[in-house]
């Protein structure tokens, strides 16, 4: 029985970690769907958002230095969201606008360049030391589950899972029900056709980058609360990539399910396979797992069927 409980604990912890990966993967999917850009800068966007949020909250930030007070959490988050929207606008203006119609790999390299710029900018503006991000998300193990079921589950992870659920629902409603959402789907479907019915691509790109900037903010908050705001936060992008190829580049549900599979698989492997080969396998296991899936479904679990014509 004790063993089963342990297994359950591992699985739950895996699911929760998976949700955190999904949050990052979501941002990738949104941008890829709407513009076909494989946005490598998503992880750095999350880092940048977390840094900006920290700056509003802490007394050693720019904001405090300039205005002499810090923002409360409920105001700081929208303020950071505004910054992310502004950033999206700048990115569209300065980079994407000039790269329309380029090959995918060129756009991909441009986002790596963008990641470098944001990384350097973040370090310059906010310093590169580890910053604790505390916005009042409860920490530690959940007492309720611990007492009643003897299960050890982090409160933060429960909050993250709930946030992810809310976020995905909101995104689904946004995509399905609103005018802008319909336009986004039209662009994702066919750029040319969308243009011909009067949808402005530039505007759509700003919107979609803003949305994924806000998703990055959420991911940044969660990861930042978990392990502090630091440079390594941008590396979660690398964690989200296997999730992406597993779930399919173009599928929002894929990002969620992929994240859960990767999270659980990774935790199980860490616990049961890791000790046999000397540990530290979490860096590559997710990739191998995703690769295994891909050999059977080359477009990912939920990706659009690849139809090839000569």
């Amino acid at each position, binding site marked *: 029985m004790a063993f089963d409980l342990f297994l359950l604990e591992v699985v739950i912890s895996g699911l929760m970690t998976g949700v955190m990966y999904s949050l990052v993967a979501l941002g990738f999917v949104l941008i890829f769907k709407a513009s076909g850009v*494989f946005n490598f800068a998503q992880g750095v966007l999350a880092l940048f958002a977390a840094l900006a949020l920290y700056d509003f909250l802490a007394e050693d930030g720019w904001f405090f230095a300039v205005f002499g007070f810090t923002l409360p959490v409920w105001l700081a988050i929208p303020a950071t969201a505004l910054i992310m929207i502004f950033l999206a606008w700048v990115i569209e203006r*300065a*980079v994407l606008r*000039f*790269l329309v119609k*380029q*090959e*995918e*790999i*060129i756009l*991909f*390299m*441009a986002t*790596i*360049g*963008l*990641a*470098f*710029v*944001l*990384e*350097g*900018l973040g*370090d*310059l503006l906010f310093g*590169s030391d580890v910053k604790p991000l505390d916005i009042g998300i409860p920490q530690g193990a959940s007492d309720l589950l611990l007492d009643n079921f003897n299960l050890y589950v982090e409160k933060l992870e429960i909050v993250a899972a709930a946030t992810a659920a809310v976020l995905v629902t909101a995104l689904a409603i946004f995509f399905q029900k609103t005018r802008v959402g319909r336009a986004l789907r039209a662009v994702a479907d066919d750029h040319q056709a969308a243009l011909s019915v009067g949808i402005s691509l530039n505007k759509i790109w700003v919107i979609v980058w803003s949305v994924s900037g806000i998703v990055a903010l959420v991911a940044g908050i969660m990861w930042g609360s978990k392990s502090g705001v630091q440079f390594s936060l941008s590396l979660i992008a*690398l964690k989200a*990539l*296997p999730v*992406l*190829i597993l779930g399919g*580049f173009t599928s929002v549900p894929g990002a969620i399910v992929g994240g859960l599979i990767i999270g659980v698989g990774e935790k199980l492997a860490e616990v049961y396979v890791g000790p046999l*080969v*000397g540990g*530290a*396998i979490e*860096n*590559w296991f997710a*990739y*191998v797992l*995703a*690769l295994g899936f*891909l*050999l059977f479904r*080359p*477009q*990912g679990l939920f990706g659009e069927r*690849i139809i*090839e*014509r*000569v």
Partner: protein
Amino acid sequence: MFYRENGQFKSSYSSDQAIFPIAQDRAFVIGILLVAFCGVPFFINEYWANAILIPLLVYALAGLGLNILTGYCGQVSLGTGAFMAVGAYASFKLVGFFPEVNYLILIFVSGLVTAAVGVVFGLPSLRIKGFYLAVATLAAQFFLIWLFNKVGWFYDHSPTGMITVRPIDFFGVRVTGPEATPAAKYLFTLTIIATLTLTAKNIVRGRVGRSWMAIRDMDIAAELIGIKPLQAKLSAFAVSSFYIGVAGALYFGVYLGSVEPLEAFDINQSFYVLFIIIIGGLGSILGAFLGAAFIVLLPILMKNLMVGGFGVASGTAGHVEILLLGALIIFFLIVEPHGLARLWQIAKEKLRLWPFPH
């Protein structure tokens, strides 16, 4: 007026198939080779060899390798760093096993080992395409680096986990380690790279290279005209990994001397090499060299300018450097997405007409 091909007729098959059919090109390349082989070694010093010329050549070779795979065969790979590591560790182990064998042969064998590993990790390319493949090659990146860091056999159980090159003589001349003269290191690297570049140029304009390009342009169409995707893709992975493996062996043996896998061959290395070929020009041999020059020289230039010129603190300079590097990469992609090699081509077109505008 300086550069024109009129009056240069091809009257034999061999002149029709020459690598540089135009006399000016030929003269230019021979001139560069003469300077590189006979001029530079007399003036080279420690700084020029270790900070500029050797890294430039090694990165150019790695770029060449990746260009074969990505530029000519269209398979995006992010595993370059790991394949360089395979070459480096293979050469390290081989030198340990066979200290008497000529170093050149060992480097060649290291390349072959890397080619074998590359083929294994290239197998998914038969099913997976585009970015899915790019991410799948990251599996190679993370797995191989983990392996080299974890299994003691690879680094001879050294307590630091690093591998350090043994002093090796090549026909009586020391080419690795601290006692080797800069000129010897440089000439050794240059010879290998010149030979491999010539080979690459001939591979890509031959039958194999054309089958790669057909696969790149549209793999289904290529299959219909009788090119076997299995052979074409795996041969591209093999040749590309061979080049990258040799580059890795030189990177470790001649350039750095001792490496630690987590730092020297991490994912940034893969990105750097990808930058080299994108900025230099996809599907161009010259592009690999121009891109390597850009990526190697630019940070040195910026560091010298900022720390020496404006007195910026070196910590801040590091951040500014990465910021500027990113910005310049974006700038170049916007201005000339086909890379420096294309700029060179445009320059030649202009020179053909000069001094007349049309």
